[in-house]
């Protein structure tokens, strides 16, 4: 897929939570390029002396009617904090789409579980939307520390079945996603996961134990995002490979995780 450098205009900036912001942006000049669920953008952070590199942010949703791309940003450092201070009408520079993306269902018979934790839910919304276009209803299993950390609940519910876990029990079942009763009661043809690494390892271990194909989305630290700098490598069965070009989505069989 051809990669583009674009100056986008923010149409809406919504603070979802003290640590999360939703950026909705459009290209006033042209229809946005084709993007796959699981792919990401490299967003330039302007006017911040403490940051230097772009920030890799996954594509949260693409709305073709309004020609918008959405980014769900967790404020973790100076770069993401600067992004959270942007306002509607501001211009910001992105390179997209980057990386490979999740495997879309090949037929409507597939039953796909999308598991997300924290800001890792971001790419799953777009994945769910694309699955619906293909006539497959997604099942979401979303985990967070507490009810207030469960993001975009309404948007997920509009696409398919949604199950929650929270560590404090304020929403859904108490505990981690891998402890949810859904995993005891149902089987899936594939599982796609994005979230903190310990969570992804736990889900990968579950998927392996029930012989279900499983894809995980890695977020290794990146510099270029284009496969040039070789900084974001993951140790795989084929040696060190760039997460930005060979990933960010990997089948768990490609990784050397102890599962």
């Amino acid at each position, binding site marked *: 897929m051809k990669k583009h450098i674009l100056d986008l205009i923010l149409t809406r900036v919504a603070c979802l939570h003290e640590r999360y912001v939703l950026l909705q942006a459009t290209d006033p000049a042209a229809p946005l390029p084709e993007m796959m669920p699981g792919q990401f953008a490299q967003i330039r952070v302007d006017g911040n002396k403490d940051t230097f590199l772009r920030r890799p942010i996954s594509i949260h949703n693409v709305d073709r009617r309004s020609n918008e791309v959405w980014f769900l940003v967790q404020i973790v450092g100076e770069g993401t904090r600067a992004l959270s201070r942007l306002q509607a009408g501001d211009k910001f520079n992105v390179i997209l789409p980057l990386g490979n993306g999740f495997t879309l269902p090949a037929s409507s018979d597939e039953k796909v579980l999308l598991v997300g934790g924290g800001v890792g839910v971001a790419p799953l919304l777009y994945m769910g939307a694309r699955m619906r276009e293909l006539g497959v209803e997604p099942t979401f299993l979303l985990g967070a520390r507490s009810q207030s950390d469960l993001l975009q609940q309404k948007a997920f519910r509009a696409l398919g079945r949604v199950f929650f876990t929270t560590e404090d029990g304020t929403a859904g079942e108490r505990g981690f996603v891998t402890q949810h009763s859904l995993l005891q009661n149902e089987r899936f043809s594939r599982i796609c996961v994005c979230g903190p690494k310990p969570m992804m390892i736990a889900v990968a271990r579950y998927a392996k134990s029930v012989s279900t194909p499983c894809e995980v989305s890695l977020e*290794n630290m990146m510099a270029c995002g284009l496969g040039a*700098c070789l900084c974001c*490598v993951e140790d795989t069965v084929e040696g060190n490979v760039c997460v930005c070009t060979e990933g960010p989505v990997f089948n768990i069989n490609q990784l050397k995780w102890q599962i």
Partner: protein
Amino acid sequence: MADLRVDIAGLHLKNPVLTASGTFGYGLEFQDFVNLEDIGGIIVKGTTLAPRQGNAYPRMAETASGMLNCVGLQNKGVDYFCSHIYPQIKDIQTNILVNVSGNSPEDYVECAARINELEHIPAIELNISCPNVKHGGMAFGTTTQGAASVVRAVRQAYHKTLIVKLSPNVTSISDIALAVQDAGADAVSLINTLMGMAIDAEKRRRILSIGTGGLSGPAIKPVALRMVYEVAHAVQIPVIGLGGISSAKDAVEFLLAGASAIEIGTANFLDPAITVKVAQGINEYLDRCGFQSVKDIVGIVE
């Protein structure tokens, strides 16, 4: 339109802009953003005789106005380059140069000899300055004897334009430059990255997997500019300048300091189309200031 052509010891460039090794892949990674043929030359990533996995992750730390890396020359080896990469890039209508590195003088010689056979590679850049490998790399580039011995050996095996990339992590870079000139180098390029370190205060440990890394980006530009100026005044062979160049203005400063051409490195990560913009910007500078040719400004600053 000013004349942007430059000549580096028999290497003809349509403009003075090259890409720094390790920041532009094999060029193919950037063809969605720029017409590769509008770049003066592409120096592809560091190539060694045997395949190398490089260092463990994490390999990168962001700094104020720059970044540290300790990639450690990850590449699939010269045989893979010759059989798989070269056929894909050999017909790009610009100069394709290979950055050659090694663990021993024999490795450098063998690798350079293989590249010498490739018709469409008019030059190599000999990397005696990588700070991220245990054996070889910068070890050869930090003494005049070490640098001269590798260059002398490679000179016997390599018959096209031989550029030697110098380390700034030395007491006198001019002495090293003179030594490689005497050993048969056709040109020198400088600077490679400056050795640095990053520490995570919360986790109370060093961030990079091998503890240290090479600093690049705008943070090192003044250091690079000073070294290019010094070396250009010390040697007779052409100097290629690099180190934090992020704009046409930066590039012009290096040319004024004495560089005959420049390389763009880390800036490619922020703007993948920067190379062509810099070439255009140099042309605009020359036109605006009334210079006919880029050669007219090389080293004119006292």
